[in-house]
C-alpha cells in the first residue's frame, strides 16, 4: 500500500484551511458591516481558488498514486484516519469547487439581504466540506462529510434565505423530502462501513483497495453503498428531491447544488464501489443500466412538460448523471474516463444556466416560462450566453459535454449496445427540451402584456442599468464559464492527461479480480 502514496512538499492543508478561516472570521464581525463580510468571503474564496492551479502544475500525471497525501490521526483506536489525497479524478473536483464558490459569492452579492453573514459563513463551510470530500481517501469520513454537506449545506440555509417569501408550504415540503430521501438512502451505507471496518480493521482506502471481500458480502456492501449513492446521483425512483431542491433554492444555492453535491454520488461510486467491490459491480451492471436508461428517457420527456424555468434546468442533471453511471458501469477505459468529463462539464453548464435564469428572475420575479418570450429584442446579451449554455446542455459537438457523452457511448457500446442506444436516444430528447426552452423564452414574439405587468418601464430601465454596475459581474462570470466550456470542448486533451493513469488503474483493478 505504500506504493500508492507519494509524498511531496506541497500539502493540502492550506487548501482546506483557507475556507475554514474565511468562514470563522465573519463570526466576529457584527452583522451591520455586511460589505466587509462579503469582501472577506470573496477574498477567502479567491485565495482558495488560486491554489489548485499550483497543485495542477505540480501534479504528476504519469502515476496513478494519490499525491499530496496527508494523514491526520482521527481515531487511532479503530485505525480510522483522516487521510486526504488527490489523484487525477479528484483534481477536477477540487478545481471545480474552488472555481464555483467565488462565483456564487458574487452572485449573492446584493440579492441576499436577510442573513448575509450566515450566507457567507455557510458557503465557506460548504466549500471546505466539498474540497475535503473530493480529496478524502477514507470511506467513513467521505460518508460523514458528504452527509453533513447534504444536510447542513443545502437544506437549512437555502430555505432560511428564502424564508419569508415564496410559497412556503411547498418549500417546506421540499426541504422535508430532500432531508428524508437522502437520509433513508444513506443510512444503509452507514451500516456498510462498520461491516468493512469489522472485516479489515481499518477504513483506509489505500488498504481497502487491496483486500478482497467474499462475493456474498460484496453484494451486501455494494447494495448498501449503492443505496446511498443512488439517491445522490440521482437515480430514477429517488430523484424527486432534485427538482424540488433546485427550484426552492436561491440562485447561488442552485449553482452550488448543481456544482458539487450532485457529483458526490457518482464520485463515491467511482472511488469506493467500483474499486472495492468489483465482482458485485460486475453482477449488478444490468441493475444499474436499467434505472439509468429509464431515467434519461423519462426525465428528458418529463422536462418538456415543465413550465418552471428552473425546474427544466434542474431536470437536466438527472439525465446527465445517469449517463455518467451508465458510463461507469461499462468498466471500459473509455467509459470511465468519459464519465468523469460530464461530471466536470456538468459543474459548469447547469450553473451557467442557473445564472441566466437567475438574471431573469431578478428582473421579473417570475420563473414561469409562459410569461417570457422574445427576450432577444429587449436583452441582446443574455440570449447569446444562454444559447451557448443550452448547446452545452444538450451536448452538441464543440462543447465539453459532447466529449464525455461520446466517450460514454463508446464505452457503453462495447458492453451493451441496447443501453447505449437508449442513452443516445435520451440525449436527443435532451436536445429537444433544451431547444424548446430556449425557443420559448428567447425568440418569438415579445409579450409586453406580461412583462409590463411585472415591472413597469421605468423599473426596467433601472434594472437594465443595474447589471452594468453591479451585476455586470454576473454577465462577465457567465462569459468566463462560457470560455471554459468552449475550451474544454475544443481542446480537451488538457483534461484527460491527468486522468488517464488513474482511470487505467481503476479499470485494471476492476478486471483483475
Amino acid at each position, binding site marked *: 500500500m505504500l506504493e500508492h502514496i507519494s509524498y511531496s512538499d506541497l500539502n493540502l492543508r492550506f487548501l482546506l484551511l483557507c475556507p475554514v478561516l474565511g468562514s470563522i472570521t465573519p463570526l466576529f464581525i457584527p452583522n451591520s458591516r455586511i460589505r466587509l463580510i462579503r469582501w472577506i468571503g470573496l477574498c477567502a474564496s479567491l485565495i482558495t481558488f488560486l491554489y489548485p492551479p499550483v497543485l495542477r502544475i505540480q501534479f504528476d500525471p504519469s502515476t496513478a498514486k494519490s499525491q499530496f497525501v496527508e494523514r491526520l490521526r482521527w481515531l487511532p483506536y479503530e485505525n480510522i484516519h483522516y487521510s486526504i489525497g488527490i489523484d487525477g479524478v479528484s483534481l477536477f473536483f477540487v478545481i471545480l469547487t474552488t472555481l464555483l464558490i467565488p462565483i456564487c459569492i458574487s452572485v449573492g452579492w446584493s440579492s441576499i439581504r436577510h442573513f448575509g453573514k450566515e450566507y457567507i459563513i455557510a458557503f465557506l463551510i460548504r466549500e471546505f466540506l466539498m474540497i475535503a470530500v473530493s480529496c478524502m481517501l477514507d470511506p467513513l469520513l467521505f460518508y*460523514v462529510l458528504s*452527509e*453533513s454537506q447534504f444536510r447542513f449545506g443545502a437544506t437549512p440555509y437555502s430555505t432560511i434565505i428564502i424564508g419569508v417569501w415564496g410559497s412556503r408550504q411547498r418549500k*417546506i415540503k421540499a426541504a422535508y423530502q430532500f432531508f*428524508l430521501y437522502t437520509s*433513508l438512502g444513506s*443510512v444503509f451505507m452507514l451500516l456498510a462501513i462498520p*461491516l468493512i471496518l469489522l472485516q479489515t480493521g481499518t477504513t483506509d482506502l489505500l488498504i481497502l483497495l487491496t483486500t478482497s471481500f467474499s462475493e456474498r458480502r460484496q453484494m451486501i456492501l455494494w447494495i448498501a453503498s449503492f443505496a446511498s449513492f443512488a439517491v445522490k446521483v440521482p437515480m430514477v425512483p429517488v430523484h424527486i428531491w432534485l427538482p424540488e431542491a433546485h427550484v426552492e433554492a436561491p440562485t447561488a444555492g442552485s449553482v452550488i447544488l448543481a456544482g458539487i453535491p450532485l457529483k458526490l454520488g457518482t464520485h463515491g461510486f467511482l472511488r469506493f464501489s467500483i474499486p472495492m467491490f468489483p465482482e458485485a459491480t460486475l453482477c449488478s451492471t444490468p441493475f444499474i443500466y436499467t434505472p439509468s436508461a429509464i431515467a434519461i428517457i423519462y426525465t428528458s420527456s418529463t422536462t418538456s412538460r415543465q413550465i418552471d424555468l428552473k425546474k427544466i434546468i434542474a431536470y437536466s442533471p438527472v439525465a446527465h448523471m445517469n449517463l455518467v453511471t451508465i458510463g461507469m458501469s461499462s468498466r471500459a477505459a473509455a467509459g470511465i474516463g468519459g464519465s468523469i468529463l460530464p461530471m466536470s462539464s456538468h459543474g459548469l453548464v447547469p450553473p451557467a444556466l442557473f445564472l441566466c435564469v437567475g438574471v431573469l428572475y431578478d428582473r421579473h420575479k417570475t420563473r414561469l416560462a409562459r410569461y417570457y418570450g422574445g427576450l432577444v429584442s429587449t436583452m441582446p446579451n443574455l440570449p447569446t450566453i444562454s444559447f451557448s449554455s443550452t448547446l452545452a446542455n444538450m451536448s452538441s459537438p464543440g462543447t465539453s459535454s459532447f466529449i464525455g457523452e461520446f466517450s460514454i457511448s463508446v464505452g457503453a457500446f462495447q458492453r451493451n449496445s441496447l443501453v447505449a442506444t437508449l442513452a443516445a436516444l435520451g440525449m436527443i430528447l435532451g436536445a429537444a427540451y433544451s431547444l424548446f426552452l430556449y425557443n420559448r423564452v428567447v425568440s418569438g414574439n415579445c409579450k409586453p402584456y406580461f412583462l409590463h405587468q411585472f415591472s413597469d418601464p421605468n423599473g426596467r430601465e433601472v434594472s437594465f442599468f443595474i447589471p452594468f454596475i453591479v451585476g455586470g459581474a454576473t454577465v462577465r462570470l457567465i462569459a468566463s464559464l462560457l470560455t471554459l466550456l468552449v475550451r474544454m470542448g475544443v481542446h480537451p486533451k488538457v483534461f484527460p492527461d491527468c486522468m488517464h493513469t488513474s482511470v487505467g488503474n481503476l479499470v485494471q483493478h476492476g478486471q483483475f479480480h
Partner: protein
Amino acid sequence: MIYGSTGATHFDQLAKIFTSISISASGAQSSGIFMGILFIAVGSLFKITAVPLHMWAPDIYEGSPTPVTAFLSLAPKISISANMSRVSMVGSYGGTLQQIFFFCSIASMILGAVAAMAQTKVKRPLAHSSIGHVGYIRTGFSCGTIEGIQALLIYILIYASMTIDAFAIVPALRQTRVKYISELGALAKTNPISAITFSITMFSYAGIPPLAGFCSKFYMFFAALGCGAYFLALVGVVTSVIGRFNYIRIAKRMFFDRPRTWILFKPMDRDKSILLAMTSSFITSSFPYPSPLFDLTHQMALSSYL
C-alpha cells in the same frame, strides 16, 4: 430471590457460584436464580423506560418541573445501565436474557421514533425520543462484547450532554409558559442564538453527521454488527431515519412557522447559558477530535470486566 437460592449477594461470590452451577448443569435448582435475575432485569428495564415498561415516561416527563425531568431522564439511565452491566457480567445466565434485551431494544427504537410523531407538546417528544435512545443503549448493552459496553458508555456520555442541552433550553423558554411545540414558532426571529443551539441539539439527537450524536450512533451500530445482530442494526438504522423527521419538525417549527400570537422570550440567565455553551460546544466539536472520548470509554469498559 437470588439470596434465597445462593446465599450470597456480593458480586464476586455470585460470579463464582454462577460459573460453578453452569459447569455442573443442574436444572431444577437453578430456576430460582433465573427468576431472580429476570426480576432484576425487568425492574431495571422499568426504571430506564425501555419499551414494554415505558408507559409512565411521557406523562411524568411532561408533568414534572423541567429540572426534575432532566434529572429523571438522565440519572436512572446512567446508574441503572452501569448496574445492569455489572449484574449481567456476573450473572449471565443463559442466552435468553440477551434475547429479551434485543427485543426491548428493537421495540424501544421503533416506538421512540414512531410515537414521537404524534406529539404536540414540547416535552413529550423529548420523552419519546429518550425512549428511542434507550433502545439504542440497550442495543449496545445486549451484545456481550467489550465494544458493546464501550458503545454503551459513549452513547450515554453523548446522550447525557445532549439531554442536558435540550433540557436547559426548555426551561428558558418556559419562563413564558411554553408548552406546545407550535409556540416555539419563529424562535429564529426573536432569539436566533437559542434557536440555533436548540436545532443543533435536535440534529445531534437525530444523528446527523458532523455532530456527536452521529459518532455515538455509528459506534453503536459498529458494536451491534460486531456481535452479529444484523437485524438489530437494520432496525436501528431505519428507525433513526424515521426519528429524524421528528427532530427536523421541531427545527422547522422554530425557524419557519409563524405563530398565531408573537411570543416574547425572556433572555436566559447566565448559569444556563454557560451550561448550554459547554454542552453544545461539546456536541459540535467532538467530531474532529473524538479519540480521547473513545480511549477513555475503552479503558472504562475494560476495567469493568476485570
